[in-house]
C-alpha cells in the first residue's frame, strides 16, 4: 500500500551539523526521524481514534531541501498501528515554514489509511459514554508503574490522538515529541452529537528533554474524529 505523506517543515537558520541535513538523508539519522515523527502526528490527527493510534515503524528514505517558503522533507515511511500492529507504508512531504511560528504543512496520501471506517468498538465506546449517567474521569494514564486499567486504554489512546494536534503544531526541526502521560481526563457533559473531554496531557520533547503540560478541550465522535476546541500550554512548574 502506497502512502504519500507530505510534511512541510520550516526552519529558522539552524546550527551547522557535520552530517547530512540537506539532500539525501540517512533515514536513521535524526533529521529524517524528526520529520517523520511530525508526519506521524499528522496521521494521528487525521486517522486516529480511541482504537487507532499510529507509531513510527521505520523511515525508509528521506530527502530535505531549502525551498522558497521553508524547508521541505520528502520521506518514505512505514507507520504501525498500535493495537493491530498493522503497518502502513507511504510517502510523506513535510514543509516547515521559514518565517515566524507555525506548524509544518503535512501531506499524506495513503489509500489504506483513507479507507477508514468507524469501527464497532468506537461505536460501542461512544454509546457507552453518551448514555452514561455519570461523567467519566481518570488520572495518570499510565500511572507511575506504566499501568493503565483496561477500561481506560481507549481514553489513553484518545489522549495520544488529541495530543497529536498539539505535537504537530509544535513540531520543528529541533523537536521530537511523544505524549508522556495523560495527567487527567474529564468527560464534559454536552448535548451535541460529539462527546466532549477536558484533558491535561504531559508531552515529552526528546531534544530538550522537557516535559510540557497542555490543557485540551475537544470533541470526539466515531464519524467526526477528534475536533480540538481549545488548547493551552501550562507554564513550567518550578521545583
Amino acid at each position, binding site marked *: 500500500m502506497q502512502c504519500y505523506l507530505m510534511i512541510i517543515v520550516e526552519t529558522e537558520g539552524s546550527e551547522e551539523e557535520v552530517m547530512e541535513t540537506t539532500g539525501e538523508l540517512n533515514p536513521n539519522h535524526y533529521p529524517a526521524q524528526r520529520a517523520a515523527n511530525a508526519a506521524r502526528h499528522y496521521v494521528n490527527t487525521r486517522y486516529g481514534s480511541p482504537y487507532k493510534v499510529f507509531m513510527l515503524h521505520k523511515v525508509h528514505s528521506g530527502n530535505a531541501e531549502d525551498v522558497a517558503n521553508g524547508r521541505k522533507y520528502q520521506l518514505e515511511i512505514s507507520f504501525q498501528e498500535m493495537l493491530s500492529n498493522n503497518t502502513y507504508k507511504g510517502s510523506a512531504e513535510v514543509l516547515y515554514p521559514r518565517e515566524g511560528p507555525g506548524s509544518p504543512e503535512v501531506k499524506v496520501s495513503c489509500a489504506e489509511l483513507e479507507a477508514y471506517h468507524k469501527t464497532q468498538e468506537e461505536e460501542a465506546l461512544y454509546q457507552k459514554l453518551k448514555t452514561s449517567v455519570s461523567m467519566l474521569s481518570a488520572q495518570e494514564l499510565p500511572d507511575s508503574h*506504566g499501568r493503565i486499567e483496561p477500561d481506560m486504554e481507549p481514553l489513553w489512546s484518545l489522549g495520544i490522538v488529541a495530543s497529536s494536534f498539539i505535537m504537530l503544531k509544535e513540531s520543528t526541526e529541533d523537536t521530537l515529541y511523544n505524549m508522556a502521560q495523560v495527567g487527567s481526563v474529564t468527560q464534559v457533559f454536552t448535548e451535541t452529537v460529539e462527546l466532549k473531554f477536558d484533558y491535561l496531557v504531559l508531552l515529552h520533547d526528546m531534544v*530538550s528533554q522537557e516535559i510540557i503540560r497542555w490543557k485540551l478541550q475537544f470533541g470526539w465522535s466515531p464519524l467526526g474524529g477528534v475536533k480540538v476546541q481549545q488548547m493551552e500550554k501550562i507554564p513550567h512548574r518550578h*521545583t
Partner: protein
Amino acid sequence: MFLSLTLTLLVLCSGTATSANRVDYDYFKYHRMEEITKWKSDMVAAHKDLVKLVEYGKTYENRTIDLLKIGFKGQNKKIIWMDCGIHAREWIAPAFCQYFVKTLLESSKTDPKVELMLRNMDFYVTPVLNVDGYMFTWTNETNRLWRKNRTPGSCGCFGTDLNRNFYSNWGTKGVSFNCCSNTYPGQGPVSEPEAQALTQFVGNISDNVLAFLTIHSYGQLLLIPYGHPEVIAPNHDQLMEVGLAAAEAIEKVHGMKYKVGTSPTILYPNSGSSRDWARLQGIPYTFTFELRDNGTHGFLLPQEQIQPACEEAYSGAMTIIRHAHQEAFSRAPETAALWGPLLLMAMAQWSLGCSL
C-alpha cells in the same frame, strides 16, 4: 543412631538451602530505593565468594552511592563498568542493572565462559547512581517524570542534569544554562557529588576498564561517543561494528530494533556525558544504552515489559562485554586461528603462481 544422623543431615540441607545463592526478589517489578538497598546486601550475603558492596560516594542529600563488585578473587583484574539510573525517571534502567547482576551470577554456575570472565574480570555495577533523583520520582505521581539530581539551583529551581555534568567538552552542546532546564549542566564541570563520585572512582581504575556501559531509557538506541558532532572517537569503526553486533543480538531475543550510532547523528548533540568522559579516559568500549520503548509509553514502561526489555538488553550488553573480554584475553589464540587459513591461502597462491 542412624535415625538421628539422617535427621541431622536433613537439617543441614534445609539450612543451606535458605541461605545460599537464592535471593527472593521480583526482578520484574519496579522497586523503591529501600528495597534495592536491601537487595544489594542480600546479594552480598548470598554470594560471599563473588559479590562485594563498594561505597564510592555520597549524593547531594548525603545518601550512599555504591556498587556491586562481582568476580572471583584475583589480582590486577580487568574491569567491566555498568551504571544505571543516572536519570531519575528512567526506571527500566535500575531494573536492568539488578536483572543483569542476577543473570550474570546464575549463568556463572552453568556457563564456563561466564565463569572464565568472572575469573579474568570484575564487574562493577551501580544499580542507581542518582539516588536522590530516583527517590524523588517515588515521592508522588507529580514527581514521577523528574530527570535531574536534587542539588538546589541558583535561579529558583532544583537539579543538575548529571549526564551533562562530566568533564567532556562540558557546557558546549545540548545544554541550557537556565537552572530550571532539564539539560542544565551544573555550575561547572563535575560540580555534582554524584558525578564527582563516579569520576574519582573510575578515574582511579580506568587503565583496567575494558568497557563502560551507561544505561538509560527510552528510545531503543546504542549510542557511541562523542556527543560533539565534530569529534570522532579513534576507534569509531570498531565501536560501530561491536554496537551493530549488539543490536543484532538484541533483535534476536524479542524482535526489537535498536539503532546504533553517535549521539549527534541518531539523537542530538550533547556534551558532558559520562560516556564521553569515559572514552576520553581511554576506556575503549563505551556505550550509552537507551532501552525500551520507542515512545508509546516512554518513561512509564509497563511492568510486563521489564522482563523482555531486560532479556534483550542483557544479550546486547554481553555481546559487547564478550568482545572486550576476547580482545583482552584471547589475543594469541585469535591470531593463531587467523594465521592458519592465511598461510594456506598464501601457499596456494604461490604454488599457483598468482599474487595475493
